[in-house]
């Protein structure tokens, strides 16, 4: 479904992503892990179209996306959240989600219905009329997901959803991801919470200094010595 082909991103004096290739099949949950600065979020920005890669390409459902901007990629079916949440702060939670529903071509009335249903699904419906910037962080993260879901994506990119969540919230988020996945939504998930990613991911990609270090099923990756030395060697609890 998604193919990242030999993508390299150079910032001034820094290679953020270094010849990265991988694929995600329809219905998969793919985990993306690696130390800070490994290039995970940059890779997300390349896939969602916010950054043009220096070289390489992104193919989605057989189509090369290189010429498409973020809006058109979303309309093709790629939804994403941001690690540093970006709510439309002055709008109500409902209106935030309405924006997502509108871009898939729904009229205002229908978009409001979709938005309400999405909020209900994420148990945000109580906050429908709250101004987005006054929500606590955990809920703002959920709002990111709600907004992206309302666009009706086929592939969802989640950028560190679990950071700052308590164990109950982490479990809730995991079961939501699995529920949506069971309905056919494909996931690409950046996560620092290792135990969380191991529970849901079918395949894990470890990035280090912009390059893919290891790729494989979670059980294999966690036993890999390279991975242990660059990443897991750090105390996970503090991450």
């Amino acid at each position, binding site marked *: 479904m998604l193919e990242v082909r030999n993508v390299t991103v150079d910032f001034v004096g820094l290679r953020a992503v270094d010849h990265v290739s991988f694929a995600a099949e329809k219905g998969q949950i793919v985990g993306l892990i690696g130390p800070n600065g490994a290039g995970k979020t940059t890779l997300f920005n390349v896939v969602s179209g916010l950054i043009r890669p220096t070289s390489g390409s992104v193919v989605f459902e057989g189509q090369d996306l290189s010429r498409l*901007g973020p809006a058109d990629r979303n309309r093709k079916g790629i939804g994403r959240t941001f690690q540093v949440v970006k*709510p439309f*702060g002055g709008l*109500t939670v409902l*209106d935030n989600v309405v*924006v997502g529903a*509108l871009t898939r071509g729904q009229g*205002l009335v229908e978009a409001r219905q979709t938005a309400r249903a999405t909020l209900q699904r994420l148990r945000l419906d109580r906050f429908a009329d709250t101004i987005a910037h006054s929500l606590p962080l955990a809920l703002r993260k959920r709002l990111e997901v709600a907004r992206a879901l309302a666009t009706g994506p086929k592939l969802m990119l989640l950028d560190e959803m679990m950071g700052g969540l308590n164990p109950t919230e982490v479990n809730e988020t995991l079961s939501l991801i699995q529920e949506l996945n069971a309905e056919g939504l494909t996931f690409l998930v950046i996560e620092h919470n290792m135990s969380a990613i191991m529970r849901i991911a079918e395949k894990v990609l470890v990035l280090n200094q912009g390059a893919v270090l290891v790729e494989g099923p979670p059980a294999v990756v966690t036993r890999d010595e390279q991975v242990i030395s660059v990443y897991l060697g750090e105390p996970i609890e503090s991450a």
Partner: protein
Amino acid sequence: MRISDASPISPAGARIAAAAALVLLLCVPLVVRDIYRLDLGITVLIWASLATAWNISGGFAGGLSLGHAAFFGVGAYTSTLLFLRLGITPWIGIFAGAVLAAMLGALLGVITFRLKGPFFVLATLAFGIVVHIINVNWRGLTRGAAGLLLPFRGGPQNMLFLNLWAYWYTGLGLLVLTVGVSMGIERSRLGYYLVALREDEDAARSLGVRVVRSKVIAAAVSAALAACAGSVYAAFIQYIDPDSTTQFELSVQIALVAIVGGMGTTFGPVLGAAIVIPLGEMLRARLGGGAALVVYGFLLMVIVLTAPNGAIAGVRLLVRRLRRLIDSRRKADA
């Protein structure tokens, strides 16, 4: 339902209040017989329309333009020149001006949509100055600083009236048009997209909002409406020159009126015009020239500091408190 002061949807109460205000405004010429006041009133109507037009790109989309006098000028000159040179009535000329301004606005939108913050402001400012310079120097077309005088001939069919009340209703028609378009956008898909882009462009794009299309449409509509205000202004004053139509100070004043009233809201710019224009006029009449400007500037600072979200936010707060008070009274009674 609680609604944010920045929400793209005005509270339902605002529309009822607007309808009531419209009825009152329709009655004004029947009550106000004083020529000076009616004249001032018409100026307020034109400024309210102009600020409302500005607000569509400046407020909803968040692109603070300091070049809108250019569109006002294009409207004023197009309808006036068509009338003087070809004898085409300003009632038609106003549309020609709007179309021309829309194209210019769209062009500016295409050039500037990528620019953020001060860079966008500077680009619009430069655009306004360029148009002003062209206006001053293209004497063959605009007669430059000498300006254009509209000879009084023809009457109503040429938007030239003997009675002030007719201008009042023309101005009111203009205001209904601009506010109507603004309300339409506020409650539309485009309105949501513009506000989303203003709040966070990357997030909006990632949700499928097309930046160029949304911003260019907003810029074109905003420019077209500003041009309509220009045509009505020219017919009202019957004399236009670069200083009264395309000057930089005018662009600043347009933005100022909208900001004082509350940018990003439909009724804020109208309220802003109702405050700022009479205030400036009063001060000029009482204090004259320099002193008036000093006090004017000072008062504007006070207004902006005490109501950073515009006067409309204060009104909304007041209404909310009144409602709460009435509710609690009712509960106490029951």
